[in-house]
């Protein structure tokens, strides 16, 4: 039997899901092995293959990994040098000057990924149009290479001013480095990000350079293990932008796989939203330390043009930047807040209840874990209210101490606030929910959307527990809890397609643009995308391409993307002014008269290799029904209520009113009083939530 397998590596666990050609689903959770992550994968794969039987053949191996972000965050990138234009070696360290926090004299900038003494300058200078102002001086190139050799670095980033307009000088430098140091990794800025803006381009190229040797070694090690297991299916990796890339492309441009894991969950949600015909969905992914919100429109993920690695969680709105390493490549747009199961609950000096962003982590963990935690967490609050099973999480592997949690909440929260333990616990959950609501509102408000018109898709270990209360407060009436919510990122991998996101600076006045010039530009970027898909092995009929231009009124400080309609260059050009005006009106709420001159600043391409067979199975069976039991749970207004605890299968074919608790191996879904739940034909739990009264 043919198997498609998704592998998602997290900090603690490696999740694997296999879907058979017959629709069968198998899952496996193994401990992650940080020393060499491929070891943990190998253990999980063997378990899955054993379960699938001797005739199992792996046809597809899809992988999300945190190796990119962890390498940056832990400062374990390869020693790297930078070659740049004389006078500008400090661009990497000066950054764009901005800081992410105000009024904090102890805030410190992230350490530059290349130390100053290895930021080497060469004599050369291009003009913005690509013409040569000062020819490249080979003597200075040779001197830089000599320093690099003596420093013993493993990787070199090359970023010269205005190289997006003319790559010649960067190419000459790269050839010289390659000739003198054949074993060194080389990242060249015009190949990674051919766009104007020296700081984003330099930073992105340097991140790529410092990751390249690390990611390449990891992928080689993984491939060796796969070969040993006789798995010949091509390995593909999830990119931050939500598309898959071949292992080779990922090794060449590891900067594209940095936020691999969170992207996979949103891609899964998008595929599911498309299947269900949901026009607008907010995703709500809550784990142990943070919660993340994303937006899906018409079955498509939304992307941000850039991200910051290691910036930490947002402060409520994403207006403060500079906390991390800038990576200017498209990434699935996620707003993140520091609220998860392990988030600490306390009162501030003014007596106000606060949740997070500090987390108890795995050690000491929540009070109820009995591992030395003394400060109550969100998980403790959920436990004393009866929402979680004291018999244990993850199928009983962790037993929970309810009375310890009660004592901690009583002493530290309830008594100082003059509330009962239950009121205090529920209050902290509502405070946490308020923090998470800000993330959800951020992704919708930033696009001018009314969140009440969206459905919510809730996943992650804690997402289904909080979904109903958050949706109620936000005025969202429908919640979808997909199958295997706690392993949803691994599942999302199985639904992704191969994608190449290309962009370049392209400055033209729209009223002076001719069809010939447009056609040449389109041909160039389309051929580039097509060539990459061909290299990935896609037949011509499975290759798709969508081109957008970046456009603005002359004098405006920022541009917006406008998707080009299919057609000849003449037809595209004829409709472009109107298309831009309409898009401007959608984004800003107004448009200028057609006489207002428009400027094009860039060109982007999304080239997609699609699969011949549908990615998404017809349905995911809800699993075996487990025996019904009851537990006391506390709800506002009704107090303690004997509440049914059921499995997902018990909801098939009927609509059940809350309160009920749907308990599964990897997550718990809370259906509060007033809400109802059912399971749809695909296998999702669907909650209907009445508006807050």
């Amino acid at each position, binding site marked *: 039997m043919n198997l498609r397998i998704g592998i998602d590596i997290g900090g603690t666990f490696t999740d694997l899901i296999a879907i058979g050609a017959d629709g069968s689903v198998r899952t496996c959770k193994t401990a992650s092995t940080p020393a060499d992550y491929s070891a943990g994968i190998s253990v999980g794969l063997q378990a899955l293959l054993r379960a699938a039987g001797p005739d199992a053949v792996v046809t597809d191996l899809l992988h999300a990994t945190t190796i990119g972000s962890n390498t940056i965050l832990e400062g374990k990138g390869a020693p790297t040098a930078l070659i740049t234009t004389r006078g500008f070696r400090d661009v990497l360290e000066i950054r764009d000057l901005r800081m992410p926090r105000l009024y904090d004299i102890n805030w410190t900038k992230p350490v530059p990924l290349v130390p100053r003494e290895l930021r080497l300058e060469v004599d050369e200078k291009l003009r913005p149009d690509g013409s040569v102002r000062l020819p490249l001086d080979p003597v200075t190139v040779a001197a830089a290479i000599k320093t690099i050799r003596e420093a013993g670095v493993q990787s070199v980033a090359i970023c010269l001013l*205005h190289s997006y307009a003319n790559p010649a000088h960067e190419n000459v430098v790269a050839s010289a480095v390659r000739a003198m140091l054949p074993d060194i990794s080389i990242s060249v800025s015009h190949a990674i990000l051919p766009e104007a803006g020296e700081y984003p381009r330099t930073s992105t190229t340097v991140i790529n350079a410092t990751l390249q040797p690390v990611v390449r070694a990891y992928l080689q090690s993984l491939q060796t293990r796969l070969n040993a297991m006789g798995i010949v299916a091509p390995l593909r990796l999830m990119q931050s932008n939500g598309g898959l890339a071949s292992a080779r492309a990922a090794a060449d441009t590891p900067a594209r796989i940095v936020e691999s894991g969170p992207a996979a969950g949103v891609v899964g949600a998008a595929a599911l939203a498309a299947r269900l015909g949901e026009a607008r969905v907010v995703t709500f992914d809550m784990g142990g330390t943070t919660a993340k919100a994303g937006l899906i429109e018409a079955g498509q993920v939304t992307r941000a043009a850039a991200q910051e690695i290691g910036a930490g969680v947002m402060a409520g709105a994403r207006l403060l930047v500079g906390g991390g390493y800038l990576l200017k490549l498209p990434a699935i747009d996620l707003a993140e807040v520091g609220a998860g199961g392990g988030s600490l609950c306390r009162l501030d*000096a003014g007596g106000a209840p606060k949740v997070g962003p500090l987390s108890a982590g795995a050690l000491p963990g929540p009070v109820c874990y009995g591992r030395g935690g003394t400060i109550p967490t969100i998980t403790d609050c959920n436990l004393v209210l009866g929402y979680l099973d004291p018999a244990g999480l993850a199928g009983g592997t962790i037993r929970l101490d309810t009375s310890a949690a009660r004592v901690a909440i009583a002493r530290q929260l309830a008594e100082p606030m003059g509330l009962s333990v239950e009121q205090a616990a529920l209050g902290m959950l509502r405070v946490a929910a308020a923090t998470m609501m800000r993330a959800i509102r951020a992704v919708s408000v930033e696009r001018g959307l009314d969140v009440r018109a969206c459905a919510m898709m809730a996943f992650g270990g804690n997402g289904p527990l909080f979904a109903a209360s958050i949706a109620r407060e936000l005025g969202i009436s429908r919640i979808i809890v997909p199958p295997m919510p706690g392993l949803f990122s691994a599942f999302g991998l199985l639904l992704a397609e191969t994608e190449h996101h290309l962009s370049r600076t392209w400055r033209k006045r729209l009223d002076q643009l001719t069809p010939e010039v447009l056609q040449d530009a389109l041909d160039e970027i389309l051929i580039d995308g097509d060539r990459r898909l061909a290299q990935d092995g896609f037949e011509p009929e499975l290759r798709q391409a969508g081109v957008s231009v970046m456009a603005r009124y002359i004098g405006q400080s920022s541009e917006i993307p406008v998707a080009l309609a299919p057609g000849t260059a003449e037809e595209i050009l004829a409709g472009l002014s109107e298309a831009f005006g309409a898009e401007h009106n959608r984004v800003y709420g107004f448009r200028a008269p057609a006489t207002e001159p428009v400027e094009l600043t860039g060109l982007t391409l999304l080239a997609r290799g699609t699969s011949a067979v549908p990615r998404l199975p017809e349905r995911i069976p809800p699993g075996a029904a487990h025996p019904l039991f009851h537990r006391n749970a506390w709800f506002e207004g009704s107090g303690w209520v004997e509440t049914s605890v059921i499995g997902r299968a018990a909801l098939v074919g009927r609509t059940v009113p809350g309160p009920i608790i749907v308990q599964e191996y990897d997550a718990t879904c809370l259906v509060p009083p007033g809400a109802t739940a059912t399971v749809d034909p695909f296998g999702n739990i669907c909650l209907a939530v009445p508006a807050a009264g």
Partner: protein
Amino acid sequence: MQSARPDPITAELFRNAIVALADEMALTIYRTAYSGVLKNIMDFSTAICDGQGRLVAQGLSLPGHLASIPSALRACIALFGDDIAPGDILIMNDPYSGGMHLPDIFIFRPFLHPAVEGETSGPMAWAATVCHHTDVGGRVPGSNASDSTEIFAEGLCIPPLKLFAAGQPNTTLLRMIERNVRLPKRVMGDLRAQLAACEIGIRGMADLVARHGPEATLALMGETMDHSERLVRHCLAELPDGEAMFTDWIDDDQIDAGKPIKLVCTVRKHGEKMVFDWTGSSPQVKGAINNTWSYTAGASYCAAKCVLSINMANNDGVFRAIEVIAPPGTIMNALSPAACAARGLTGFRAADCAFGALAALYPDRVFAASDGGNTGVTIGGTDTSRRPFIYVDFLSGAWGGRPTSDGLDGNTNMFANMASFSIEAIETDNPLEVLDYEMLPDTGGPGKYRGGLSLRRTWRMLADEGILQVRADRATHRPYGLQGGGPGSPSRNVMNPGTPEQVVLSAKLTMTLRQGQVFRHELPGAGGWGDPLTRDAQAVAADLKAEKITRAAAALDYGVMFVGDTLLIDEAATRALRTRIAARGPAPSPAWQPFPGLVA
């Protein structure tokens, strides 16, 4: 109408919601604004205020705006009194009616709730915004010259007026604005962004009232401010009492060239209260660097917030415990018709001065002087095809040494969270070539914790000619060091550097720049913190390796010697040199001139 104190959970949920609402207003401006001033420099603020104009929640924004909105709104409320109806929207930018400088235009929209309207006969709350507009007319593009001498030269002054009355736009006023600014599309676009943000604020308030009821909403707004007040008082009570005065100097105001301008800040801390008293500061000056009260207060609050142990929400509760005294007629609280367009400089320096006074009281919580604020560089003219261009840039760079770590190299000043412009964009949009943008070694004040380094940027003019305007400072009064740390390097303007035609220019200047001429600006370096002889020799070695200091400075400023031309510390020689320098007293190099204003 004050009812019993709301329960803590409800209060926290309300606080979260109203702060989120102010942030959503800020996001709306960010998303819909036209101009780069708003997007790159974030020079705008949003807020929800109560019916009396007290600040309840402020969006993420510029520290300099901390006191601006209530000050301006209260002036409007005082003027209009009961004459506020549903559908009214107010506008104003008059510095002498509670504003800051003319480019900062305020828009206020009242929230009137039917259930309370009858009883209180006034708005229950206000949605408030202020944005720095690209141009408001006047004698120079950008409306920000530092050499104007009266506000009448600085652009269009809008007293408190109704931009909308009962929902109808005031087309007379709109046309007046449109005709009096250089970039009407941009200004009108940014005003639209402000109106959109006010709309979001009003809708959000309606949601909150629908949920909690009007009376509870009023009580919760009160509790939001009371909570911040409790936090501030808690933080202030932790700090020892005391009083300290600090004096600092602005080089000059460009009109009375070479005449230093005195800033004096006295901080008095007693119990749960702190006072910033600016008595003794210079009378208002002829040049356009006069502060209005709210900007001086913003600088004072910014410095205070940096020494408090908790970063609490910005609202009236903070102001209740921190008093700001700025005598009218001084540069810290100017009277009409003083020019004030370039008062940004004085705001930065007021923050430096307030930090200086706080450092005497709380040495372990304050950093040494930073770069003194940004330098404004404007180059305008016509390019070789006779098309007009205007290049406006703000350079900023270094933090002073801190009680536990070095000052930051290449970072925005604490008082303004500004971004830098891209070199490639500058060269694409203007007939200018940028020759370098880099850190300069040996410019950070020496200290146990070194001050941040100076940044320099150098331009070559490619057009036939243009006008160069520079507003810099700290050329004669260098950024001070603290606790034995040395001052940072002075700022410098140089024409044709490194050539026989090299000329060093004054800090503030307006002059013609001709084709081929090269202009260089060097920002000041920041002050050091603590005795440099106690700096970890390994940190000195790391600075030498990174070429942030030279071998000579390692010896002269820090007393650290190396083996030959290696990076290996010569321990014995270092010990001997440090002993010798210490015996000589605290003046081993010219960088050690004690700063004149430092109060022991």
